């Protein structure tokens, strides 16, 4: 019925119909079918419909007879939509006489028919078409005549087809095909609008008595099947959907007289394929008004699904069926008593399965693309789950399944029948689904069916990517396993499921699954091992969230948690190794406030708030937290605790340490025998982001605690092993053993075994290779240990990590620690440069001392020391004008020494010893002294004294650091004038201020002088030359006095002698016998002097020898002019051994360097004669 094609009739003159030619024409016409791309623009429809492809059935006109006089409206396509008449006549006369009449007969018959179109096709042979017409042939053609005779209205219904056998060109058909399309559309349009009008009329009569839904349905369905016939599935489906809506409306109005009962179950009703429309004679039943609602709905659904299938939308079929089975199943429950037992369940079950099969048959999965396929698979999964749900219901009723969650739901209880109703059930009929019958009879069969169906559904869901649906079904299967006693497999499923719920925090479901797992574990009596602890911890994790309570049916949950926690404690003790569990939310440890120090021992205490989120006591052993300091040194605070009550509790943790400073809370831990709950508070980015607050803990400094300072020794000697001094202040501790491990910066090694104790009576050192071990140090002592280290000159300051572990006599068992770091300046505050000047047998060394930092350095004395063995060397320095010289960063200070050596060069190095101190240290010592003096003059109790002194000194130093104004005054007078802002809050302020402001000498500070010893090599020199220009008096006129130069005038030539005196005194012994060739060069100063004579020349130098050259000088201008300089260089001497040449070292001094010659301006007289103008006339 629905496969009816569009009918097109043809007819032709009888003779033509019989001819062979006609058959060819017909075959050629059929080869042009099906029609493609028909665009239907109807006046009654808003948008353009496109029929992609339309099959036509060509039938001879005679074969149709008007036999369909039935009142039942069937499809509109039953009757032909188009009639063709084919003419071949080419002769006008023949047409007039014969053909015209034939056409007229046909036309009159056809035009009577409603909603049918007609076309006259004039076939001409293509070979004769172009010969004559139009202009030359005045007679009109046959086609024109036909048009004139029949084509009355505007529409052109006559087509010429120029066709010969064998011509397959589509061009010649185009006109005809278009005409056919137009004709079909116009016929369809008119018939559809007519039928629609009928439907509308029928619908409007709905409220009238006697209106019958079934007739209306048939009428409207005819429209739908017409649409289907022309491949407009969308419109066809629309008709059915409208029918469904109006059916439901009618149903709601309970106006159901024309229907049979809701359902008249017949055999096999429950097991027949749902989507088959041939399983019953539905249309006959509808026509007979005897169809039941059940059958009617199935028919409607099947038709809709068939259309959806043609539209390639299989997933919608499944969704529609799922919804239908659900809703209609619910309706059927109303009449459940009349139905065979388990009819509804069996019907839904088998229908769902049959639809899945049907859809698979209809739509091979290869045809669908990704998303569609996923949807299709998912909706198949839904159908299968629906089938499984029916098994739930049957199972609960029959008995294989327990009547509890998750199988039984409240809906079932509502619909459960009263026993009275069951007894009324018609027992004549039974359900017919074999599988279901078997399952009802046999438990094992039921379980198999249940598992098979569930697994099919899971498979579909997994394929479709619906993981969460699959998880749910796994949960059901596990529940089934529990019921069947397969606890092990149920446990396996239940332990694997939480992992899927946890990431999205579906605490409720996770908690439910975990509690099941725990129950099974208990039932199985499995050992409470590591795995069990993991499950339990996961369960406890969920317990802290209030979401979990929503699914907890047990009232005594609190009690069960209590038992579980108790069990956890015993299980934890039985573990064979530690189990670390991080970030568990059951408990939390937070530090509240800063740490405090114990008064009588080196102990830091910190208060923590421990929250227990469980409703019961938790038995634990220990709580500890780890704090991390600036240099990632760690402090661990520990407290032993028995149990944690619910809620928050404050616990004080302690750490035997004398470290102090600012720390961050790094991690915390609660230890329950072998189970460690850990929380990281800092560290990874993720955790800090989550909490975004870092707990800072300030550990205060205990002034009576052990402390270690590092400083440089008082005496430094360059070129020998460097030392550092470790000053260990024992404070309140009488140390029995302390291990001090200073960690040098990279590249520097400490020689621990060579450490020496500098102070007497403060314990002993034990030799050790990797640390300094100090034994038996008394209370309140400063133990000074000198520690040699390798060269650290590449550091300006060294940062030395200190790690001290120690125990005291009073509490031997406690190992205390001190972790800190100290910075010590390695570089010297002063730098020394030396410049040497040779003068014959004397050497003058100029030492320039400059400050390397911004600190002022006080220098008490400098001394150049030679070794005692040094013979014939006399060193003398300058006498300082002041007792203390200050080197500032801007002003270096020079010290000059003269070395007089009688036996040639000084081979051994001399030592420059500088006694210095930094101004800052000096002032600090002064401050300390002053404070001590002031405090001792005041009545201060002994225990307070130490801390008060420290506090005051620190405060004063900080004050002085903050302002540098006092420095100049101090340098001038020794007065320290405190800034005004200094306040100490007590009455020490004034005495200290006064005491500091006293005038004092520069050496008054008690700060010890530091000493630095710098080795100095005395340089050697091969040749020392003294060059001298002497002006000869004899050359000058007026040689009157021998010791005074006569006046010299500018421009006057002066005779001078250039004398070189060479000495090899500072050369090594073997060099003294040699002689060197030297070259001299007199400086040419063209503005001052004109120079005559040998300005440049070579001479040979010998030890103690001299060489003289005469020169003539002419002063160019008057004034005091220095004599020109003379440059003397040794010439390279070639050494035979190395083939190269070396230049001996040489030093030259200008003897006349300080001499100036007074040049007088040249006197003279000039006579100028000026004419008076007498001879002019």
């Amino acid at each position: 019925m629905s496969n009816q094609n569009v009918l097109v009739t043809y007819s032709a003159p009888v003779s033509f119909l019989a001819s062979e030619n006609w058959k060819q024409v017909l075959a050629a016409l059929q080869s042009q079918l099906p029609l493609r791309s028909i665009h239907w623009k109807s006046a009654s429809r808003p948008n353009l419909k496109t029929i992609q492809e339309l099959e036509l059935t060509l039938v001879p006109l005679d074969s149709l007879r008007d036999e369909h006089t039935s009142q039942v409206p069937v499809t509109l396509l039953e009757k032909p939509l188009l009639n063709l008449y084919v003419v071949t006549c080419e002769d006008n006369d023949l047409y007039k006489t014969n053909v015209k009449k034939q056409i007229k007969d046909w036309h009159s018959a056809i035009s009577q028919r409603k909603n049918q179109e007609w076309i006259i096709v004039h076939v001409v042979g293509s070979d004769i078409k172009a010969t004559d017409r139009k202009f030359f042939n005045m007679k009109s053609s046959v086609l024109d005549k036909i048009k004139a005779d029949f084509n009355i209205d505007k529409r052109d219904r006559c087509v010429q087809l120029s066709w010969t056998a064998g011509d397959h060109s589509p061009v010649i058909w185009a006109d005809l095909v278009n005409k056919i399309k137009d004709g079909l559309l116009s016929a369809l349009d008119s018939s559809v609008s007519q039928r629609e009008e009928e439907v509308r009329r029928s619908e409007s009569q709905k409220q009238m008595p006697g209106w019958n839904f079934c007739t209306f349905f048939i009428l409207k369905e005819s429209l739908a099947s017409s649409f289907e016939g022309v491949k407009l599935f969308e419109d066809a489906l629309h008709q059915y959907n409208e029918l469904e809506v109006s059916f439901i409306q009618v149903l709601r109005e309970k106006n159901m007289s024309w229907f049979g009962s809701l359902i008249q179950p017949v055999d096999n009703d429950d097991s027949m394929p749902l989507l088959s429309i041939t399983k019953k004679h539905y249309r006959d039943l509808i026509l007979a008004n005897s169809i039941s609602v059940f059958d009617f709905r199935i028919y409607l659904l099947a038709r809709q699904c068939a259309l959806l299938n043609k539209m390639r939308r299989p997933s919608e079929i499944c969704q529609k069926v799922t919804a239908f089975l659900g809703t209609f199943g619910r309706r059927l429950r109303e009449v459940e008593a009349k139905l065979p037992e388990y009819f509804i369940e069996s019907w839904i079950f088998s229908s769902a399965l049959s639809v899945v099969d049907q859809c698979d048959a209809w739509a091979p999965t290869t045809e669908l693309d990704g998303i569609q396929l996923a949807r299709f698979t998912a909706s198949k999964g839904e159908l299968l789950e629906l089938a499984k749900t029916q098994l739930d219901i049957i199972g609960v009723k029959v008995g294989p399944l327990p009547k509890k969650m998750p199988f039984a739901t409240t809906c079932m209880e509502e619909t459960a029948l009263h026993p009275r109703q069951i007894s009324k059930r018609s027992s004549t009929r039974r359900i017919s689904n074999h599988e279901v019958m078997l399952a009802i009879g046999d438990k094992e069969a039921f379980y198999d069916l249940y598992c098979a169906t569930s697994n099919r559904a899971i498979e579909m869901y997994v394929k479709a990517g619906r993981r969460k649906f699959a998880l749910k079904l796994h949960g059901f299967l596990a529940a089934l396993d529990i019921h069947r006693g397969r606890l092990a497999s149920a446990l396996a499923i239940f332990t694997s499921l939480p992992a899927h719920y946890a990431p999205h925090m579906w605490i409720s479901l996770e908690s439910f699954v975990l509690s099941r797992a725990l129950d099974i574990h208990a039932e199985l009596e499995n050992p409470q091992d590591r795995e069990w602890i993991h499950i339990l911890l996961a369960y406890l994790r969920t317990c802290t969230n209030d979401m979990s309570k929503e699914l907890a049916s047990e009232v005594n949950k609190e009690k069960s948690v209590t038992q579980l926690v108790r069990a956890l404690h015993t299980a934890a003790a039985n573990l064979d190794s530690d189990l670390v569990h991080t970030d568990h939310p059951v408990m939390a440890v937070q530090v509240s406030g800063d740490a405090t120090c114990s008064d009588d021992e080196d102990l830091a205490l910190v208060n923590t708030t421990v929250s227990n989120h469980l409703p019961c006591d938790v038995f634990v052993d220990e709580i500890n937290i780890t704090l991390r300091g600036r240099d990632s040194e760690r402090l661990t605070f520990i407290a032993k605790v028995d149990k944690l009550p619910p809620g928050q509790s404050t616990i004080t943790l302690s750490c035997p340490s004398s470290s102090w400073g600012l720390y961050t809370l790094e991690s915390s831990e609660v230890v329950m025998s072998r189970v460690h709950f850990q929380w990281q508070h800092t560290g990874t980015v993720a955790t800090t982001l989550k909490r975004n607050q870092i707990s800072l803990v300030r550990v205060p400094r205990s002034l009576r605690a052990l402390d270690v300072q590092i400083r440089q020794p008082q005496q430094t000697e360059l070129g020998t092993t460097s030392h550092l001094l470790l000053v260990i202040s024992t404070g309140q501790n009488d140390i029995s053993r302390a291990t001090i491990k200073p960690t040098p910066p990279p590249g520097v090694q400490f020689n621990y075994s060579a450490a020496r104790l500098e102070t007497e009576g403060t314990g002993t050192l034990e030799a050790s290779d990797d640390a300094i071990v100090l034994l038996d140090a008394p209370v309140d002592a400063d133990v000074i240990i000198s520690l040699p280290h390798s060269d650290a000159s590449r550091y300006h300051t060294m940062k030395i990590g200190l790690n001290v572990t120690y125990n005291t006599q009073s509490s031997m068992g406690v190992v205390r620690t001190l972790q800190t770091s100290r910075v010590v300046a390695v570089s010297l505050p002063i730098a020394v440069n030396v410049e040497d000047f040779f003068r014959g047998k004397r050497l003058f060394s100029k030492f320039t001392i400059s400050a390397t930092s911004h600190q002022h350095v006080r220098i008490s004395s400098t001394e150049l020391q030679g070794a005692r063995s040094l013979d014939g060397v006399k060193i003398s320095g300058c006498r300082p004008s002041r007792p203390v010289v200050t080197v500032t960063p801007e002003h270096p200070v020079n010290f000059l020494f003269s070395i007089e050596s009688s036996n040639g060069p000084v081979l051994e190095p001399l030592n420059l010893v500088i006694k210095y101190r930094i101004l800052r240290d000096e002032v600090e010592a002064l401050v300390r002294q002053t404070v001590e003096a002031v405090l001792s003059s005041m009545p201060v109790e002994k225990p307070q004294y130490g801390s008060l002194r420290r506090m005051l000194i620190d405060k004063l130093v900080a004050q002085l650091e903050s302002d540098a104004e006092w420095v100049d005054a101090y340098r001038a007078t020794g007065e320290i004038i405190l800034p005004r802002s200094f306040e100490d809050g007590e009455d020490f302020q004034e005495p200290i201020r006064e005491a500091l402001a006293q005038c004092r000498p520069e050496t008054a500070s008690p700060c010890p002088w530091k000493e630095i010893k710098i080795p100095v090599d005395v340089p050697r020199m091969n040749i020392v030359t003294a060059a001298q220009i002497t002006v000869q008096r004899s050359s000058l006129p007026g040689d009157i006095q021998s010791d005074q130069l006569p006046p010299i005038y500018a421009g006057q030539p002066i005779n001078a002698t250039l004398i070189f005196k060479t000495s090899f005194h500072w050369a090594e012994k073997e060099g003294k016998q040699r002689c060197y060739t030297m070259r001299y060069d007199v400086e040419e100063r063209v503005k001052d002097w004109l120079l005559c004579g040998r300005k440049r020349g070579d001479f040979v130098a010998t030890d103690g020898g001299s060489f003289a050259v005469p020169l003539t000088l002419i002063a160019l201008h008057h004034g005091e002019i220095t004599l020109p300089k003379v440059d003397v260089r040794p010439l390279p001497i070639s050494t035979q051994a190395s083939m190269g040449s070396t230049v001996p070292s040489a030093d030259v001094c200008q003897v006349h360097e300080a001499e100036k010659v007074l040049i007088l301006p040249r006197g003279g007289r000039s006579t100028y004669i000026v004419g008076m103008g007498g001879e002019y006339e």
Partner: protein
Amino acid sequence: MAPPLRLNAVAFISPQNHPILIRTFEKGDELKYHYVAHTSLDVIEERSQSNGPTKSNDCYLGLLYAMDEIAAYGYITPLKMKIVIALPLTDSVVRDAEVIMTFKALHLAYYHASSNPFIRLHDTPAGVGSAKWKRFRRKVDEISRAVGGGSVPS
């Protein structure tokens, strides 16, 4: 005359797919509705994938699926918070307009609740759904009552 809607359960789910609040108006079936809320996420994901950006401004997702005599409807806010309601499956037509209205009311309730300045939204995944904030629950219950009844859990 359509029978009034009846809410069986309402679920608010965060953009990260964490449950915010699952409110069940049928006693004893809490597990079922938790499952419904959880499984709905799959369908919502499927929908948002296949629809793509074309219909992204449409919050209402329509019927997600029907199962176990329950029809689950979905709604996704512009900030990807999801609301799922479970209606009993009936033979009568459920009008989308009514469902959308219910969703909008629920969304507004959440919106008001989360505007509470005292809530630290990111402290717990549940946020406003936690039992500490009773007003939100009360509001949801009121909506359920207004829509068509159903017993309100204590």
